[in-house]
């Protein structure tokens, strides 16, 4: 009896503990973490709540170091790392970054490698398959091999990894970032390969899209003439990055256009996802002659998908031969965007078609051989084992041709065994982007730059530069395939060698401009040049508005100050609206409106085209423009993947082609004209706004409430996210803050005798949602304020608001 009682009580206790030590599934709530483990006040999530933003032991010993490293933290948690050699410097950077951002950097490396199922379970399987079938890890392996050719290249990556791992090795469960506890896994070892994976993640984010398959569908559906009319390579009225009076002083490499080639006309049931609109960036530099203090000024604001923790981590790195400040992606050693003691640089994405699709003919369903130039070539198979939390490993076999991975076939996304599309993409090449970062951090003047940026192949970037010597420049850097006109714009026949790339544009022929007569350089993801550039290029995601606004401002401004540059970065003028709205207001037949339908019309008539947070006009315009766009391009709403003409072309159609067939709506028997479309879309706007009001009785549809700029945690956990941020702007506006994309970092640097700089980003240095510095920059960022950047030449040790922390080699 006693024994039974003991047994019973023991089994209940032990069973409860076992249960609470495991993740579980609760109906109605979903997966829950191991409750007992996570709620334990001594080890669980409670330990992640931090009273002080900084909680580090002041001195730590690490045998890997050769000398002591000092890390000085400012109040805002930006570390300034002072080391005596490169190894120690990157070791300390890895250490400091892991201290603040360990979970984020590791999670991103899982994203790139297609390993999210390991953490989140089966929900992520499709995502992982896609990542792997794109060949990101394959590209990263190629890059690592190339880097390993020279030991020096790999050494600083190893130093960084050693630093991360030194930090991780000190962690016990209670110290793990809270996400590990909630998702019930533990940190892995960091490796140089993971750093390379992050670069491929970046390549995918910024150059991982194309419209080749959609283009193929559209040519098939609408014919080539209509396609060219709606999707011109270089429309009239663009404002390119390289001023159109630039002379090209090189002899271009000859590209042989095949005698006979054809555009495949067929329907592809599948296409890569389009990039989210709003991706892009601004950078510009103004020459000393245009500034009040007589120093060159550099400005940069990359627009990326908002995330918490923020994509950027800020720091200063100083060692012999290097003194640099700026931001980088946690996991990437060095400073990606920022300045050193001689030059400042900023990057924007330089989108160009870098991906092509080849249709592959397999000999049999086994896919062992494929047709090429009349012969059967062997395929290679890459077996992808995708581990899934709480489930069996999923094995995906991806076929590789000499072009690259056959991303789409009958095992993925396509039903037919006759459609097999192989992807050729520069991100698959072995490349050494990380070396550009290494060298740019150390460069002394603008003329040294040319050679050292050639390693940056993918994603191509427009690099704006301002130096203390007073030079400014813009370098369009990347590895671009040579193309005959329209090569790769559509699906190509993979069995015919005439469709092969014929090589790359030589590095020396990459476009650049130094000290142009107009006194400034700028880029905003627009077309790089007009037709006069000797090589054919195709850019399907060009920007048409931000660039013109910035150039218009920069060409009129004189006596420029840092404050004026801040205003320009935060400029909310809606150039698109200023060009489109007069057309649609004038075209609207107001005699048909009821007296109570004038509110939106009257409001928009009086709009100043600014998109400040508390205005309602931007919300009205946004809805009307979207409705109009829907009504106008309804012939593109089909089962097969297509893309709609861009806003620039849409305005052109409204202005110059009011008789165009696009105005007729396909699902009505009547023949509509432009007036019908304008009127119909206006009425739909009234409805849509009324709907919004009914759903949000607590607020007016003011712009920031309506657009809902939000910074979502990487796992989309809403308590770790921030929503309805009070900020203006949108895509196509200089202040590019849209709902989920926007200015991820703003930098302004005046390259004087004393460098003066200001920066801000949406987030905070700490990646811990339980730390006060998790979101400490957000309010300032939203309202257009900056923090002053402290750039030091030596450690400032006796300041009250600076906390010094030391990493030392072991005492003998």
């Amino acid at each position, binding site marked *: 009896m006693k024994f039974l009682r003991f047994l019973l009580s023991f089994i209940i206790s032990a069973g409860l503990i076992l249960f609470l030590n495991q993740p579980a599934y609760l109906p109605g709530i979903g997966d829950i973490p191991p409750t007992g483990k996570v709620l*334990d006040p001594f080890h669980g999530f409670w330990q992640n709540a931090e009273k002080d933003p900084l909680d580090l032991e002041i001195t730590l010993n690490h045998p890997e170091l050769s000398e002591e490293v000092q890390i000085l933290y400012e109040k805002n948690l930006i570390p300034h790392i002072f080391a005596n050699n490169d190894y120690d410097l990157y070791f300390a950077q890895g250490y400091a970054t892991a201290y603040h951002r360990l979970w984020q950097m590791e999670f991103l490396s899982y994203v790139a490698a297609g390993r999210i199922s390991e953490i989140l379970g089966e929900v992520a399987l499709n995502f992982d398959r896609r990542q792997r079938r794109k060949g990101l890890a394959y590209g990263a392996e190629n890059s690592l091999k190339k880097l390993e050719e020279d030991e020096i290249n790999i050494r600083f990556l190893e130093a960084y990894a050693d630093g991360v791992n030194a930090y991780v090795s000190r962690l016990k469960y209670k110290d793990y970032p809270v996400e590990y506890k909630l998702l019930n896994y533990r940190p892995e070892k960091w490796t140089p390969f993971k750093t390379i994976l992050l670069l491929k993640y970046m390549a995918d984010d910024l150059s991982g899209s194309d419209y080749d398959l959609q283009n193929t569908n559209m040519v098939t559906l609408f014919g080539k003439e209509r396609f060219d009319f709606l999707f011109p390579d270089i429309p009239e009225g663009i404002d390119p990055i390289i001023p159109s009076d630039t002379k090209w002083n090189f002899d271009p490499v000859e590209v042989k256009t095949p005698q006979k080639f054809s555009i495949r006309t067929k329907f592809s049931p599948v296409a890569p996802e389009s990039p989210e609109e709003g991706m892009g960036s601004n950078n510009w530099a103004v020459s000393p002659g245009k500034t009040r203090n007589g120093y060159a000024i550099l400005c940069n604001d990359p627009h990326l998908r908002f995330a918490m923790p923020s994509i950027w981590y800020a720091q200063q790195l100083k060692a012999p031969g290097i003194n640099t400040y700026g931001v980088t992606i946690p996991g990437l050693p060095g400073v990606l965007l920022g300045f050193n003691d001689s030059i400042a640089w900023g990057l924007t994405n330089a989108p160009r078609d870098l991906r092509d699709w080849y249709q592959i003919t397999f000999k049999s369903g086994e896919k062992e051989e494929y047709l090429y130039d009349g012969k059967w070539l062997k395929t290679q198979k890459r077996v992808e084992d995708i581990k899934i939390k709480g489930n069996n490993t999923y094995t995906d076999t991806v076929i590789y041709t000499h072009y690259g991975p056959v991303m789409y076939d009958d095992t993925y996304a396509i039903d037919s065994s006759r459609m097999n599309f192989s992807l050729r993409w520069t991100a698959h090449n072995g490349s050494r982007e990380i070396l550009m970062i290494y060298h740019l951090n150390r460069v002394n003047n603008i003329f040294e730059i040319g050679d050292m940026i050639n390693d940056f192949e993918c994603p191509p970037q427009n690099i704006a530069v301002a130096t203390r010597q007073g030079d400014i420049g813009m370098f369009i850097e990347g590895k671009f395939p040579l193309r005959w006109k329209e090569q790769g714009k559509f699906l190509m026949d993979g069995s015919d060698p005439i469709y092969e790339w014929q090589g790359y544009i030589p590095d020396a022929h990459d476009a650049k401009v130094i000290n142009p007569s107009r006194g400034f350089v700028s880029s905003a993801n627009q077309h790089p040049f007009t037709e006069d550039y000797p090589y054919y290029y195709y850019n399907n995601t060009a920007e048409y508005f931000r660039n013109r606004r910035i150039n218009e401002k920069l060409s009129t401004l004189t006596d420029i100050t840092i404050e004026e540059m801040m205003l320009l970065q935060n400029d909310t003028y809606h150039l698109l609206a200023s060009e489109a709205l007069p057309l649609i207001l004038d075209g609207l037949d107001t005699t048909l409106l009821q007296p109570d339908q004038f509110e939106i019309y009257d409001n928009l008539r009086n709009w100043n085209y600014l998109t400040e947070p508390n205005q309602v006009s931007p919300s009205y315009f946004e809805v009307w423009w979207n409705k109009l766009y829907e009504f106008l391009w309804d012939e593109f709403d089909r089962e097969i993947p297509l893309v709609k003409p861009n806003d620039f072309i849409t305005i052109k159609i409204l202005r110059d082609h009011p008789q165009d067939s696009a105005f007729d709506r396909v699902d009505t028997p009547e023949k509509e004209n432009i007036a019908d479309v304008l009127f119909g879309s206006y009425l739909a706007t009234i409805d849509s706004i009324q709907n919004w009001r009914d759903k949000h009785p607590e607020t007016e549809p003011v712009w920031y409430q309506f657009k809902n700029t939000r910074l979502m945690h990487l796992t989309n956990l809403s308590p770790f996210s921030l929503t309805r941020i009070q900020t203006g702007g949108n895509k196509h506006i200089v202040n590019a803050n849209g709902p989920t994309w926007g200015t991820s970092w703003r930098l302004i640097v005046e390259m004087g005798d004393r460098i003066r700089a200001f920066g801000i980003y949406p987030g905070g240095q700490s990646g811990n949602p339980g730390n006060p510095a998790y979101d400490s920059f957000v309010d300032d960022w939203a309202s257009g304020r900056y923090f002053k950047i402290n750039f030091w030449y030596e450690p400032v040790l006796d300041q009250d608001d600076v906390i010094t922390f030391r990493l030392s080699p072991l005492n003998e």
Partner: protein
Amino acid sequence: MKFLLKFIVIGILTYLFEQFFPWWSIAIAAFLGGMIFKTRGLNSFLAGALGVGLVWLWFVWRIDYETDSILTAKIAMLFQLENKNFLIAFTVLLGSLIGALSAWSGYNFRSLFEKKKRGGYYS
């Protein structure tokens, strides 16, 4: 008196074990506490509940207070609790429950080795 002693020992052991071992060490703390003094089963049960519960309450409350609920509020939302106090209460109840059951187990374990003898009314 023994109850008080028992409760104090469990509290101290809970605190000490938590410094060195994972969270489930609270069960061992309560089990040992439930075993060492001779009391009734209910006494052990309550001493376990209070011993673990109060230590957890003290630490949870202090963390929540010192950090201005910065994380408590967010995790409460994650667990779909309306109020961070529910999360505090739930945490403490969980610790108490494990403490109580484990101390009772400890008491039952001790009983295995005792001769059947009626104890005094207050023991």
